[in-house]
């Protein structure tokens, strides 16, 4: 790829045009975003930030969260287990300290990821964020326990997702992206519920269930036992669920799950994604975002295609 970089740069205006995409109400300069919890301002040191079409921050909650005990991480043969437990400073500190910094530094749309433990709490967070400038949209993380429903995750029930999204969508004109968990029987039905309730886009997938055990001692590699599994090992599943969901809804899809290379990114676009996010790839290759956008640009230029031309065009 190296030899073509200069070529791409010299044609960057055209390439940019071809990489444009829409995610609901947002126009993105590139289809590339980052997966919540895997990327922050520190990463922007490693490459030209204009590679990114949008910036998604780590999930915040109303109250500060201590997070889970150590160890929280373990690398498997083909991916990563994590059990962070949504550690974050809480909404107040986010608004007071993080948000101003994002506003100052980011030249791309900021999508704020948040989560709650009841529909009211989700709504309360949204209301507070609506009052803040510099936010282009929301990614609603519903892979979290619902205190009103025996602690069962919001994301597994179509009815609850419908109710939640209906409430939130009535409160905002900003991008409202619902992030789905793959650990369900029918992700497409849940996406349809979100769409029917007014979501303007769908993000998927959050982490799969995963676990690892020290075979010598029998000790779980992650303190809490079952963890979230991400990285290249989940790519086939993420791609299948992206395709399934793209067949079921009309709103755009922000796809993720094991995207390490521009070839991986293309697979998701063929399957129906309007934009893609890189997560674990940020850890295994800090230049991923740059390499992916270069690769996509080169691919499209060489074939004189726009992203829109291939989106959802998979041949089965």
């Amino acid at each position, binding site marked *: 790829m190296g030899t073509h970089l200069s070529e791409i740069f010299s044609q960057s205006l055209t390439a940019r045009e071809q990489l444009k995409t829409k995610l609901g109400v947002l126009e993105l300069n590139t289809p590339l975003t980052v997966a919540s919890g895997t990327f922050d301002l520190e990463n922007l*040191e490693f490459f030209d930030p204009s590679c990114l079409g949008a910036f998604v921050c780590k999930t915040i909650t109303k109250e500060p969260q201590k997070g889970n005990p150590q160890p929280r991480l*373990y690398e498997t043969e083909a991916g990563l287990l994590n059990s*962070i437990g949504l550690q974050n400073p809480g909404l107040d500190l986010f608004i007071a300290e993080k948000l101003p910094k994002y506003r100052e530094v980011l030249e791309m749309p900021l999508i704020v990821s948040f989560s709650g433990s009841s529909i009211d709490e989700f709504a309360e967070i949204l209301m507070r964020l609506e009052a803040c400038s510099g936010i282009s949209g929301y990614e609603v993380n519903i892979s979290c326990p619902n205190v009103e429903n025996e602690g069962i995750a919001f994301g597994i029930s179509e009815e609850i997702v419908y109710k939640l999204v209906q409430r939130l969508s009535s409160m905002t004109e900003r991008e409202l992206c619902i992030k789905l968990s793959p650990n369900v029987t029918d992700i497409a039905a849940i996406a349809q519920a979100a769409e029917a309730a007014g979501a303007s886009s769908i993000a998927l997938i959050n982490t799969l269930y995963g676990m690892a055990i020290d075979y010598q001692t029998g000790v779980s590699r992650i303190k809490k036992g079952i963890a979230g599994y991400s990285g290249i090992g989940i790519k086939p599943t993420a791609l299948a669920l992206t395709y399934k969901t793209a067949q079921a809804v009309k709103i755009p899809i922000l796809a993720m799950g094991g995207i*390490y290379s521009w070839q991986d990114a293309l697979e998701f676009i063929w399957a129906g994604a309007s934009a893609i996010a890189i997560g674990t790839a940020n850890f295994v290759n800090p230049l991923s975002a740059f390499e992916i956008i270069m690769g996509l640009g080169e691919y499209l230029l060489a074939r004189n295609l726009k992203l829109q031309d291939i989106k959802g065009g998979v041949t089965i």
Partner: protein
Amino acid sequence: MNNPQYRQRAIQAREELTDDYFILWIWDEAWGAAVRPGQFFEIRALASLEDAQVAGHIPKLFKPISIYDNQGGRIGFMIKNVGKGTNALSKLRAGDMLELLGPAGNGFPVYRGKHALLISGGIGYPPMWYLQKELINHNQVYWMHGGATQGDTFPCDEIFTEDGSIGKKGRVCDGLKENIAKYDIDIVYSCGPLPMLAAATAITQELAIEHYASLEAYMACGIGVCYGCVIPVGSALNWDYLRVCKEGPVFKAEEVRWELI
């Protein structure tokens, strides 16, 4: 503090030490001017995604490795081969490429006119080498190092081995209290396995001696982004999980909630 940078550097030299230990040297003057003892880099053998696609070789995480030495930009990493990542590093030879993210972490505070005691265990040795070079001109320095066996020991003032194969038989903390008194110590720097650090902290706390401990944790990003590498820090009633790669790896020993790890 500078944000960590990503760079690729050739290995300028490789040194063999005992058993599974070796040193990789790189050259970077800008980093040489910027770094401090106790900081570390996330490093990895240059991996290519082509490998993943072509040969089923999946790129793995970087590994946190302390700065062992810095000679105006000739930066050394002393590494022990203990698992997947360090094993990949152990395959590298002079001329091979390293990927580096750093400098990461806060580093040790450096004072003047102190009686400093350095205590290291196993692979806690490397950052202490850089630290003692920084301290030696304006402080009294005494360095105790412990390891499982002779192969885990390196130059210092006093050696302990668990099997007694060299130096004193026992754990390095066994001699701590005595040495603090003997050398009139007013500051302790430690790096090593958690149990050793916890034991050393018990002693320094009892004696009310200033103590900075460098901690280890499994890392993913190494730059403060993922919150994977945390340890509990604060008072018994009011603590938080702080990131070893960002707020650490050096913490005030008495503020680490050892009982929760």
